[in-house]
Each structure stands twice: as structure tokens, then as C-alpha cells.
């Protein structure tokens, strides 16, 4: 059960090493602090899960952020009602988002193509709008669901006194707000990666790929595809729920914006940026997006002036003026441009860029013929 083909095993080992050593190799990038490391692990997990649906079956869901939100709410409620331990929170997050995905998937998968996308978008937007307004007793609306000093926390308080101040999320004594939270998320990311690999190489995964390349043919051969796509949808939703739960574990707050359609859109962008259907691509896309968001939004004019200080004064102000349009408050512009460029020049995402690079310089272009069918194009 825990075996993988050799090629996949190598991928897995590389991935595990890369993830676990992130605090080391990210230090020169200024990204090695718990807050960002946790986001890397969590959004990586989200992207891996999304790829199971989008990459394998070709169904483009525009409402995955809803499951992220449901997972977060479930986790925070588990902290509030039961215990500050991370395990039950994560379990509830996965179960609840799985059920939610089952309901939405059952209805949405009656349609395909863009109709499916719009259905998932509509469900997610309804969840978001309601969470923001009338469901406030459950979600605490705009402010986001938070821990309070009066929470019942029945399991915790059965064993210990109420402490002054807000409790912290722990995993059997390990604080989840710092590096502990990162390693917890990282281990789950690696496990999630492994499961995704198993799915991809399994007969189930083959059926999913068949659905992507030609659903009609699958139907004609007597395979009822709906249960397969629904299973992929629910699994993918559970990944998103787990990611949402982890967001709450590392930072116990669940806000409604997590469910907004732009959050779903961001997830699609991450996956495509990295390379749909590849194993590493979506994770890479998620890391790059989160890193750029972090770096570019941190720039301000002072930083820029420091950066270009070596230039003559006049030139410096011009360069800073131009550069400031692309960083800090202008970083969305960079983001938009980046997507246009990636899609125009690298339709298969960064992983395809890597493959082209390798082909060009190491295989002398011989492997080119092989590339098109390996390259995983998202379906319509």
C-alpha cells in the first residue's frame, strides 16, 4: 500500500527533503519565518488537492475557496467548543469540508465545461455572501471567527483550569503558532503529496485521466464517469478543507474572505502558473505566488531608494518612480503582467519551462517530440 513506482519514489523523496529543509534554504530569500513558511506548506497542500480535480479530470472548479473556508470554520469551532489540540480541529475540518464538497459536487457535476465552473462559482459566492452577512452567528462575519476568553472548550477545561489570556493551539504541547505549526503543516503536505501520487498512479487515476481526454469515449465503453469525478471532487475538497483547517491551526481565525471567488481564482492561477497536471507544478506555483505577494507588498519607497542608491540622484528618482508602480501598492500590476506572460509564452506553466530548458540544453532537443503528449493541457 505504501509503495510507489521507482520514478515516483524519487520524486517523493526529493519533495520531502525540499519541504522539510525550507527553513534553511529559504533564509537567503528572507522568507524563513514561521508565518510565511506555514503559508507555503498550507497553500502547497491546497494546490496539490486542486490538481487532483483540475489536473486529472480537467474539471475547472471556480469555487474551491469555499471548502477552504468551511475547513477553517470547522477548526475554529473545534477550538472553541472542544479543545485547543490541533488534531480534532484538522479532522473536523476534513470531514465537514468533505460533506460540503459532496453536496456541491453532486449538483455541480451534472454539468461540465464552463457550466460546471459557473455552478461551483455560484455555490462558493453564495457561501461567501451568507457567511459575511446573515450567517454571522456562526461565522462572525466580517471580523472573522475568533477565540474568546469565554469559550466553553469542554475537553480542555475538564482537565485544567482556565488560564488568564487566550489559549494557544498546540499539538500535545507543541505550540502551533511558530515553527511547530510549520512542521505539522509540512508533514501533512508531504503526506498529501504522497496520496496524490498514489491516486495518479492508481487505476482510479487512470480513469480520471481518461475522463479528461475524452469523457464520451469513457461513457461509451460502459464506464459511468460520474462517481469517479465526484470522488475526485470530494477528495479535492477535503484537501482544501485540510488546508483551511491548518490555516486556523497556525493562526486561529477564520474569515469569510477566504471563500470569495477571487480566492478561488488565485488558486486556479497558482496551479496554472506552476503547471497543471504535473506533480510539482501546482506546489511551485503556490510558493511563487505567496512569495511574490509577500515580497512585493513589503516594498515601499524607502526600500526602493535604498535599493537603487548606487545610481546618480536624478536617475535614481526616475528609476524609483517607475519601479514603485510595480511593487508595494502596484504589485497587483506585476501579478497581472506575470500571468499574461506565462500564459502567452509558457502555456504549460513553469514546469513546462523547466522541461523545455532541460530539453534544449541537455537532450539537444531530441526529446521534443515526446513533449506534447506528456504536456498536460487543461481541458475546456
Amino acid at each position, binding site marked *: 500500500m505504501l509503495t510507489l513506482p521507482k520514478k515516483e519514489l524519487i520524486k517523493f523523496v526529493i519533495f520531502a527533503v525540499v519541504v522539510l529543509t525550507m527553513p534553511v534554504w529559504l533564509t537567503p530569500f528572507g522568507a524563513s519565518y514561521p508565518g510565511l513558511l506555514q503559508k507555503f506548506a498550507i497553500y502547497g497542500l491546497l494546490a496539490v488537492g486542486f490538481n487532483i480535480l483540475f489536473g486529472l479530470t480537467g474539471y475547472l472548479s471556480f469555487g474551491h475557496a469555499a471548502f477552504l473556508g468551511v475547513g477553517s470554520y470547522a477548526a475554529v469551532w473545534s477550538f472553541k467548543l472542544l479543545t485547543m489540540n490541533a488534531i480534532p480541529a484538522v479532522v473536523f475540518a476534513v470531514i465537514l469540508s468533505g460533506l460540503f464538497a459532496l453536496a456541491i459536487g453532486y449538483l455541480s457535476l451534472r454539468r461540465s465545461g464552463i*457550466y460546471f465552473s459557473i*455552478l461551483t462559482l455560484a*455555490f462558493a*459566492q453564495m457561501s461567501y455572501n451568507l457567511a459575511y452577512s*446573515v450567517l454571522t452567528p456562526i461565522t462572525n462575519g466580517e471580523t472573522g471567527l475568533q477565540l474568546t476568553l469565554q469559550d466553553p472548550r469542554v475537553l480542555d477545561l475538564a482537565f485544567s483550569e482556565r488560564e488568564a489570556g487566550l489559549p494557544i493551539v498546540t499539538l500535545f504541547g507543541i505550540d502551533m503558532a511558530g515553527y511547530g505549526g510549520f512542521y505539522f503543516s509540512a508533514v501533512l503536505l508531504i503526506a498529501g503529496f504522497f496520496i496524490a501520487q498514489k491516486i495518479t498512479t492508481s487505476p482510479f487515476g487512470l480513469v480520471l485521466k481518461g475522463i479528461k481526454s475524452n*469523457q464520451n469515449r469513457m461513457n461509451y465503453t460502459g464506464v459511468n464517469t460520474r462517481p469517479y469525478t465526484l470522488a475526485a471532487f470530494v477528495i479535492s475538497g477535503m484537501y482544501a478543507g485540510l488546508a483551511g483547517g491548518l490555516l486556523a491551526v497556525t493562526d486561529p481565525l477564520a474569515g469569510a474572505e477566504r471563500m470569495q471567488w477571487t480566492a478561488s481564482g488565485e488558486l486556479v492561477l497558482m496551479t496554472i502558473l506552476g503547471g*497543471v497536471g504535473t506533480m510539482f507544478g501546482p506546489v511551485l506555483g503556490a510558493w511563487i505566488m505567496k512569495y511574490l505577494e509577500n515580497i512585493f507588498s513589503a516594498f515601499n519607497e524607502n526600500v526602493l531608494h535604498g535599493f537603487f542608491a548606487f545610481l546618480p540622484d536624478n536617475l535614481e528618482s526616475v528609476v524609483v518612480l517607475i519601479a514603485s508602480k510595480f511593487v508595494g501598492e502596484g504589485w497587483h500590476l506585476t501579478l*497581472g*503582467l506575470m500571468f499574461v506572460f506565462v500564459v502567452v509564452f509558457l502555456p504549460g506553466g513553469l514546469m513546462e519551462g523547466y522541461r523545455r530548458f532541460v530539453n534544449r540544453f541537455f537532450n539537444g532537443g531530441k526529446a521534443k517530440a515526446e513533449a506534447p503528449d506528456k504536456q498536460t*493541457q487543461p481541458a475546456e
Partner: protein
Amino acid sequence: MDAILIQFLNGLDKGGAYALIALGLTLVFGTLGVVNFAHGAIFMIGSFVAVAFRQLLTLERVELSETELSPWGTALEIRTPYALEWFGDFGNVLIDYSVPIAVLLAIPVMYLLGVLMERGLIKHFYKRPHAEQILVTFGLAIVLGEVARTFFGANPIPQPMPEAVRGAADIGILFGMAEHAVTYPWWRLIYFVFSLVVIGAVFAFLRFTTFGLVVRAGMSDRETVGLLGININRRFTIVFGLAAVVAGIAGVMYTPLLPPTYSLGMDFLVLSFVVVVVGGMGSLPGAVAAGFLLGILQSFAAMTEVKAIFPGIDQVIIYLVAVVILLVRPRGLFGRKGVMEN
């Protein structure tokens, strides 16, 4: 009764606007087969044509006073609008009617923008998967929004409508009702008529011109039309330009109702897609019917009486309608089989 009537009127008014915004989107999809996520951004750019035109008209010569200081300690600025200096009273009239005049200005500007977009970017994506079309146009939408923000800031910029039509019309009196029973703003009525005219013009253009004939033929069978030796590419460019013009002038006329901001495009994006999908992808009559349907339902969902029965219904009505229609009628109201299903 009055309440229901005025709510219905409001629904028609909103519906006209929705149909107009969705029209270009479904036109581009139907002919070019492109899912254009930048359509909302085109609408936004249109509204900023109005803003830019007004700013141009109200451009002022700024002189710094040598003696007086402003309350915040810098030299006092003495501002004289060029338009008044050059044109006198006519300048005032120009400024007053800046929005309707901007419609005329927007037609060439938006056409040019549409052609540039199509030639520069969109045409490379005709054969690419829809997911990539979505991504590239979504990226383009972000870029257009941010460019607008660089020039005009993030705050809404008010665009007054002409003085003569600022008030509200007492429609009730026309139907023999009491005074003030049903009043409605002039500009909204104008917008409604405007949207009907534009929609009618687009339909007539496609119905009664040779160009329209070819485009409609292209919508149903692109390959055959290409085989007949007709240069379909050039026509596609024109269709995209046309869609941009329709969205752009819709944006210009909308500015007095909704002071434009750079995020206007994203705000209307989801809505216009829902309208198109409910109507049936690529169906022009569908977009119009769905626009009015959603407008009217949205208007009624806002009534206190309705909200008392279904709390929060006004928050989700648009999406709820989309879900129900798509589950009951798989291809939307007027959709054709086989469009966008695989």
C-alpha cells in the same frame, strides 16, 4: 401596488444595464469562441473615458499666489478652467454635457482598444483551451484595472449628469396616479432607453447587413465560412472591436449612476458571466432575456417583505437563479447544444 410597480420598473432598469454589459461578452463568445474575463475591465475603461474627458474639459490653469497662503501652509493656488477661458459659456455647456459627449468619444477609443486587444493578444488564443483564455484575459483584466488606478487613484470619481436631467420624473402622473406615487430618476430612464437602442442596433446590424450575415454564419459554422474564401479573421477583429464599443459606451453612460473606480471591472465580471450563462453561452437573445430576468428578480429580492420570508435572499439571488436555471435547463435559457460542454 405602487411599491410593486416601482420595484418592477427598477428591475427593468437594472435588467437593461445587465443585458447591455452581457451582450458584448456573449457576442465575443459566440463568434470567436473566446471566454473573455477582461470584458468587465473594458466596461471599466469605458467609464474612465468619461472621467478622462471630463478632467480634460475641467483642466485648470494653476497659478501660485505670491502673497496668499492656503490653510495648509503652501502657496495659494489660483485655478482658472481653460474651457471657460477659451469657449466662455459654451465651455460650461460642454462640461455639463460631458457624459453624453463622452459616448461619442468612446466609440473610436474603445473600438481601437478592442482591435488592439484582439490583434495583440486574443487572436493567439482562438485555438487554445478555455482555461488558458480565462487566465490570459484575467491577467489582462488585472493589468487594465491597475493601469486605471495608476492614473485615477482608488477612490470613486463623481461624474455629474447634465443639469437638465438631474431630478426624478413623476411617471405615476402619466398613468393617472397620485402625485409622487411612482417617481424615477431621469437618468435611469435614459439609460434604459439607451440600452434598448444599443441592443436593437446590434441585433439589426447582425440581422440586416451582409457583414452580420457572415458573422452569424461564422457563429454556427466557422470552418465552412472559412472554406468559402471569406476572410473571417478580419471580421472577427471587427466583432471584438464592436463588443468593446458596446461595453465601453455602456460604461460611459453608467458613470453618473455609479462613480467609477478601477475595481468596477471585477465587480461586474462575475455578474456579466452569470447573465451570459443563464441566457445560454453565445446566445444574444438569451443574454437580453437573462439580463432582464436577473434584474427584476434582484429588485424584488431586495423588498423587506421578501427578505422577511427568506432572510439573506438578496445576497444570493443572482447565484441562486444561476444554479436553478443550469440544473433545470442545462444550456441556459437559449443555449445551443454542444457549446462549451467538453
